[in-house]
């Protein structure tokens, strides 16, 4: 620069006519060679690491392919097909073992003639769930109601066979059962129960109206009556569906097993834990000290103990704390335990979402005069829940994996059914164990990996949405 300005020589100084394009990087920094140098063989430690990695791949992948595919036995009727000295060659995975046990792994002991019901439940679940997961499809609200509200009832009736024969409702429980004992049952419907139910509904509604009037004045009566009646009507619809005899053969839950139990527990756990978790999360952020303390104690207690103690408690001790000889189905007890446990975890996920909502949203809602319940329902929760969908999916993955624990309380989920299959002497071969673990591992992996990918995609999407 100095040269140019100092010089008074009679030639024009060089001025570039246009901006020059960037130079190509030097040969050492581009092409395959540079890639290899940068990512594989840059330095001595790099080379060693690469070789170590290659060695690891070499010692794991080819033997696995050999075991599961090339050396595997694909057909046969008993263990003879998979014994090396009978087959006359090295034997890998014994797939006929899986084929033979497949029904047990998927349905447990569910009666063969009734398995179409399980298939319908599987198919219906997939049909309702998929559109819920794909963000671009419309009718999310309707879809969510169908999946979280209607589907569980339908699945329950299909799987158990319905026709629950409830014995009595509020009034019977209060010792007035004699009033309703003479009623017959029509079409599976227990008329005595329904008489009790309708009377109870009227009484409770009247009581609610009276209490609300006394506490909050006459203007509170109408909403109180309405909400009580709606609650009873919804409950009645569910009970009615469960009570009516549809001609399905009843199937006890102790016959359920395998993947069916795994899915029932995971889906019930997540469906039940969502409302409870939201309530607990709201309770934890409440200004009312007692509500707050009770919520925190509940959440921290269930989060602090292992699931198997919870399951053990629910399975063997819950009946001790319930009145008289009230017996609850074994699977239902495990479900209660899982629901309590999952609710506590769900509460923490939802709390994260609530905390992420800026204070301005709360203040804005209050400024336009919304009551706190409306503020939550219309402003805060819709935003918060959207934020925590990935967290909910992650919770679901955790729950899906945790369902394996029910085998400790003698309920046979997929892993339990697999382990029971291991003890069958008809299929005792040197490779049965590895085959079984391989198959169960693939099933668990496909479910969990798929869901985790989905939650990651959602997260990216939410990130993008928030940035704009």
């Amino acid at each position, binding site marked *: 620069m100095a040269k140019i300005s100092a010089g008074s020589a009679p030639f024009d100084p060089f001025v570039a006519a246009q901006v020059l394009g960037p130079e190509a990087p030097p040969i050492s920094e581009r092409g395959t060679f540079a890639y290899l140098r940068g990512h594989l063989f840059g330095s001595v430690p790099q080379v060693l690491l690469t070789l170590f990695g290659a060695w690891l791949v070499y010692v794991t992948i080819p033997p696995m392919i050999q075991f599961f595919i090339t050396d595997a036995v694909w057909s046969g009727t008993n263990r003879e097909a998979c014994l090396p000295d009978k087959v006359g060659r090295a034997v890998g995975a014994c797939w006929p073992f899986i084929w033979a046990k497949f029904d047990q792994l998927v349905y447990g002991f569910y009666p063969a003639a009734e398995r179409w019901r399980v298939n319908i439940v599987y198919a219906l679940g997939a049909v309702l769930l998929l559109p819920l997961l794909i963000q671009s499809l419309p009718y999310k609200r309707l879809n969510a109601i169908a999946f979280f509200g209607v589907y569980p009832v339908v699945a329950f009736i299909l799987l158990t066979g319905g026709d629950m024969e409830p014995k009595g409702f509020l009034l019977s429980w209060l010792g007035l059962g004699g009033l309703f004992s003479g009623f017959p049952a029509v079409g599976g419907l227990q008329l005595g129960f329904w008489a009790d139910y309708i009377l109870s509904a009227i009484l409770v509604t009247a009581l609610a109206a009276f209490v609300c009037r006394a506490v*909050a004045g006459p203007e509170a009566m109408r909403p109180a009556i309405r909400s009580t009646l709606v609650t009873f009507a919804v409950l009645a619809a569910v009970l009615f569906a469960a009570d009516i005899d549809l001609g399905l053969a009843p199937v006890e839950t102790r016959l359920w097993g395998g993947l069916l139990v795994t899915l029932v527990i995971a889906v019930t756990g997540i469906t039940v834990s969502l409302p409870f978790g939201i309530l607990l999360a709201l309770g934890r952020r*409440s200004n009312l000290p007692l509500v707050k303390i009770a919520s925190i104690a509940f959440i921290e207690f269930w*989060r602090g*103990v292992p699931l198997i103690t919870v399951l053990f408690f629910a399975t063997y001790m819950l*009946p001790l704390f319930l009145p008289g000889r009230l017996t609850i189905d074994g699977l239902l007890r495990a479900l209660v335990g899982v629901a309590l446990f999952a609710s506590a975890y769900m509460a923490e996920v939802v709390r994260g979402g609530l905390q992420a909502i800026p204070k301005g949203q709360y203040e804005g809602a209050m400024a336009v005069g919304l009551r706190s319940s409306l503020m939550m329902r219309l402003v805060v929760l819709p935003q918060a829940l959207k934020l925590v969908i990935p967290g909910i999916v992650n919770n679901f993955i955790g729950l899906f994996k945790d369902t394996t624990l029910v085998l400790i309380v003698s309920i046979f989920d997929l*892993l339990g059914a697999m382990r029971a299959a291991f003890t069958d002497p008809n299929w005792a071969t040197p490779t049965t164990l590895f085959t079984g673990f391989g198959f169960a591992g693939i099933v668990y992996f496909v479910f969990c990996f798929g869901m985790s990918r989905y939650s990651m995609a959602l997260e990216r999407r939410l990130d993008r949405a928030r940035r704009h």
Partner: protein
Amino acid sequence: MSEATDSAPTHGAGRRWSWTDPKLRSAVIQIALGLLLLFLLWAFYSNAVANLARQGIASGFGFLDNRAGFAISQTLIPYNEDMSYGRAFLVGLLNTLLVAVLGIILATILGFLMGIARLSKNVVIQALASAYVEVTRNLPPLFQILFWYLAVLAALPGPRQSWGFGLQPLFGAIGNGLNAIGLGVIGGPIGAFAAGLGAPSVFVNNRGLVVPRFFMESGGTLLLAAIAAGIVIAVLFSRFAKKRREATGQIYPVFWIGLAIIVGLPLLVSAAMGFPIGVERPQLRGFNFSGGVTVIPEFVALLLALVIYTAGFIAEIVRAGILAVSKGQSEAAHSLGLRNGPTLRLVVIPQALRVIVPPLTSQYLNLTKNSSLGVAVGYPDLFSVFAGSTLNQTGQAIEIIAMTMAVYLTISILTSALMGWYNKRVALVER
């Protein structure tokens, strides 16, 4: 639920109860909730009392003093059948703590390695680490425990065909190798040294890992004192080194010097006493090895599964933590002339820890809680010994489950508190 806290405008003397009055409403809700909770508690209590009375079951904690009568396959403190259920409880608790503490340490190390490997520039390492993380995180922990126990146990030989490991084969191989490449000068003595070492003393079989037991013949307390003194001196030295560094900029290799003091001092002391350390080698006698220390396969399977499972999650936490530190930080460190190692250690990791510690805490808690799955493979942890054997022999279900839950709850709360304290220390780095 978050009502405005300021009270409603006060009415005159004829003030009426109103549902819109937040004070009243909060009182009503809380009283209702309190009553409901009291009712539930009372109902549970009275039902339990009635149910127990009907069946004539005694309650109380007196059973803890009774003779246990069953054996436990891994005991860290002396235990035999004549001792009490209370002692068995303690044995189970210690077994749980052992697997939890070791698991946390190993999972942290493996998790950090894997997390850093996932960010490696080396594509092979990166792909392997990713595969590790995806596979281990997506398989249920119980599945992994059973896999390690059943599948791996089936592949191990019986005690009489044990795989022996020891210094002799190792040094022998080294000596032979050196001889082979023409370095007989070094290889010869090493080979001779190996021949003098005797038979292998570490064995692996389907009864577990058998290793020699070392014990102090005399002067044990002196050696312990030396170790304690070594630790104290090392801590003092690191303080001094920090002060010097801040005052003069001079850097000491604190880690190596500290290690030398902690290891060297006890070594010197024991050398002065003429190495009074006895070795009890395991020997095959009858069915099994006797002598030495046996690490049971249940423990190995449980620990292995917990470490591998949890490390997958820790790897993801570490990766996210490191990615959360902006690239400018490491670029600035590089431009100051720091090499890769110090950049990572002094600049990136301290900042990443702030992001890492809270989720790491919950992983530690998960690992501790998952250790109760050992019951599925017969590892005598708290759940298996106490809520399993003891519960069945005594039938005191309520007391035992309550105690078990209380223990896990206490461990959880303590771990949370400890990590919270550490988190505060880490967070203080920020100004």
